[in-house]
């Protein structure tokens, strides 16, 4: 029996507004963590390559985060210090990591009576510690430890959730939010780098820019897992296969969808019915199940990822509608 096969019918359904708060709280925690990973990989790239390539790398990080045009309103260069400050803590960036954590914490506070004391403390303390760490611009020498702290605070909150929360509706919404956000983030990271895979596919034998791909794997904390599974082989097909379709890797699109499917199924069991959320899930699933990486490349990787991101977003709005997040 897995976590989610709970034999109880729902006795006290939770408030729709609270469910929405929970869903978003975990989305923000997940997004903050993924942003930190992306910055760490970008920073490493910037350190090991020339100034020109470093700018290109930072540009793609900002594109992945959807912050490029906002950034360009404030800076006319792509210096590491500027990009990191903007992404992590700038007041002119409403999507900064600091404000994501703050929103996660505000959501936690608003549904304080639906989460355990341990989860609340993890989020509240995480916010307090990041607020202190990000009170001033982060020095280059300190960047890695700050990024590690961001990942750690999110991890603690997720761990407290796993270890102390009842396996009920609240838990399912928290997991659905986590994996929906993660699927989105993985797809975006891939989409910004998809063109790197293309030449190597078109011309068999073309050398892959392994540094670039190492970096993509690194920004998903996937580099060692990938190496372990592929014994040092680095080719476009197996990388895409791993990040999109490998159900063993917890940040792959297939894994995220499987977790979302399970949690939506758990909600359907608790409520004794399925609805628009499940329909949207099934529709999105069709794009993934039974597909091989060749099918995806035939369709066009970029097109596939764009459609995936849109389908994922429509699951989010269907969940919000079905479970009455707003009046």
């Amino acid at each position, binding site marked *: 029996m897995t976590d989610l096969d709970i034999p109880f019918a*729902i006795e006290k*359904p*939770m*408030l*729709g*507004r*609270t*469910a929405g708060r929970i869903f978003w709280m975990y989305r923000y925690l997940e997004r903050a963590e993924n942003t930190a990973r992306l910055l760490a990989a970008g920073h490493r790239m910037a350190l090991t390559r020339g100034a020109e390539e470093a700018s290109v790398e930072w540009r793609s990080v900002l594109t992945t985060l959807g912050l490029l045009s906002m950034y360009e309103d404030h800076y006319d260069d792509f210096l590491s210090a500027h990009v990191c400050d903007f992404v992590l803590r700038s007041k002119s960036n409403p999507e900064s990591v600091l404000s994501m954590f703050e929103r996660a914490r*505000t959501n936690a*506070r*608003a*549904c*304080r*009576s639906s989460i355990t*004391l341990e989860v*609340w*403390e993890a989020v*509240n*303390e995480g916010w*307090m510690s990041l607020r202190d760490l990000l009170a001033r611009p982060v020095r280059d020498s300190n960047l890695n430890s700050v990024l590690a702290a961001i990942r750690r605070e999110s991890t603690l909150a997720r761990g407290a959730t796993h270890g102390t929360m009842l396996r009920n*509706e609240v838990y399912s919404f928290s997991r659905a939010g986590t994996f929906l956000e993660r699927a989105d983030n993985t797809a975006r990271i891939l989409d910004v780098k998809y063109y790197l895979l293309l030449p190597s596919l078109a011309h068999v034998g073309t050398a892959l820019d392994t540094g670039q791909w190492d970096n993509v794997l690194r920004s998903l904390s996937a580099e060692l897992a990938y190496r372990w599974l592929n014994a040092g082989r680095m080719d476009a097909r197996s990388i895409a296969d791993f990040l999109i379709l490998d159900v063993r890797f917890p940040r792959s699109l297939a894994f995220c969808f499987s977790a979302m499917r399970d949690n939506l199924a758990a*909600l359907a069991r608790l*409520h004794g019915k399925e609805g628009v959320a499940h329909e949207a899930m099934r529709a999105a699933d069709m794009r993934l199940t039974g597909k091989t990486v060749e099918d995806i490349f035939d369709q066009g990787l970029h097109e596939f990822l764009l459609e995936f991101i849109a389908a994922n977003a429509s699951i989010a709005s269907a969940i919000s509608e079905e*479970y*009455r997040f707003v*009046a």
Partner: protein
Amino acid sequence: MENADGTVRAPYRDYKAWLDKQDPALMRRKGVEAENLFRRTGITFNVYGEDDAEERLIPFDMVPRIISGNEWRRLSRGIEQRVRALNAFMHDLYHRQEIIRSGRLPERLFRNNDAWLPQMVGFTPPGAVYTHIVGIDLVRTGPDEFMVLEDNARTPSGVSYMLENRETMMAMFPELFAQVKVQPVSNYPRKLAASLAACAPDSAGPKPTIAVLTPGIYNSAYYEHAFLADQMGAELVEGSDLRVVDAKVQMRTTDGFRPIDVLYRRVDDDFLDPLTFNPNSVLGIPGIMDVYRAGNITIANAPGTGVADDKAIYSFMPEIVEFYTGEKPLLPNVDTWRCADPDSLKYVLDNLDELVVKEVHGSGGYGMLIGPTASKKKIRDFRKKLEAKPENYIAQPTLALSTCPILTRRGLAPRHVDLRPFVLCSPDGVDITPGGLTRVALKKGSLVVNSSQGGGTKDSWVLDD
């Protein structure tokens, strides 16, 4: 803590013996530890109008305020008498108004009072309970004398601090609780839930659904609302979660609308129902008053109980207690001059620099004048306000308020305190949690204990002796 002759008062003896053995540096460190604990668990208080300090801590002092078991028994009798009288008074005020017919209370007192609700006339809430939760503010004025400073029958707050202060003390000084036997307060949330359930309307099933209605996370007491809901196992709802469906107040859940039987509301009457009261309220539930009057929901406290918070009504409490209980009041009022009365007004105007003057409908320590510490200009300004609308004010002597020691950098120092015990009423009876919230003025000589104005809190012990 001490008698006039410098000896330690009996209830403090065991504590003082323990304290004398503690290292002062360690005690200060514990103070920092306590503060971190409060921050981590988010026990904060929002202060209106301060940008950078949206969530502040209420300063916590680690020296408990201690009351003997005997003294508490005496106090409890007085509190219970007063609360029973308050509840009977509310019922009378909204029905036959015997107290006015008998000439004991002038009619203008509530006719001019915004808290008096014509919508409540002739209606009896489920179980005939109006004041489900009451906080009676007491001050000690002598070795054996407590007086009532204020009755909070609207929505008394602070009970979460009573509970958290005790938890904090027990976490920091477990050995102390082994040496001094203190009556527990921790069953308050359970008793609150049981008391509210006992007031459920007849339409409720055997397990009534209880919800706490909060104005939201930016309200100054949000922490307390969430805390109480959590501790009671009740829902924490906002106005936007609720709607009247099929003549019941229902909450929007992930599985559709579900009825609520008892609403412990922490919003003012005025915001409860935009159809009945303030039409601009976004906090309330349109139509809830109709559901209420049809007997399909319990609202705690009942709308319209704010009349009892009025300071002009307060000045009549001795008469009110006697009228409804047939007994002399066990707890005296503080002497109060009603400025509506010309002779009293003259006295107050002549003695402004010695009196405390309060707005009749005010609360939270706002809009009051503390004569002895006010500047000449402030007194002049206040005099004008008072002369313009005398019926808006009452005046009281500055009391020889008792003090309790607090821990300062330089050791123990006396500060003024009050005490707010929390009282629950239901058809099953009146229950008073032993102790309550002790508020303390942290500034030397200050008499203002309100947390909105820089006051702090202490753990309040009733000895199990």
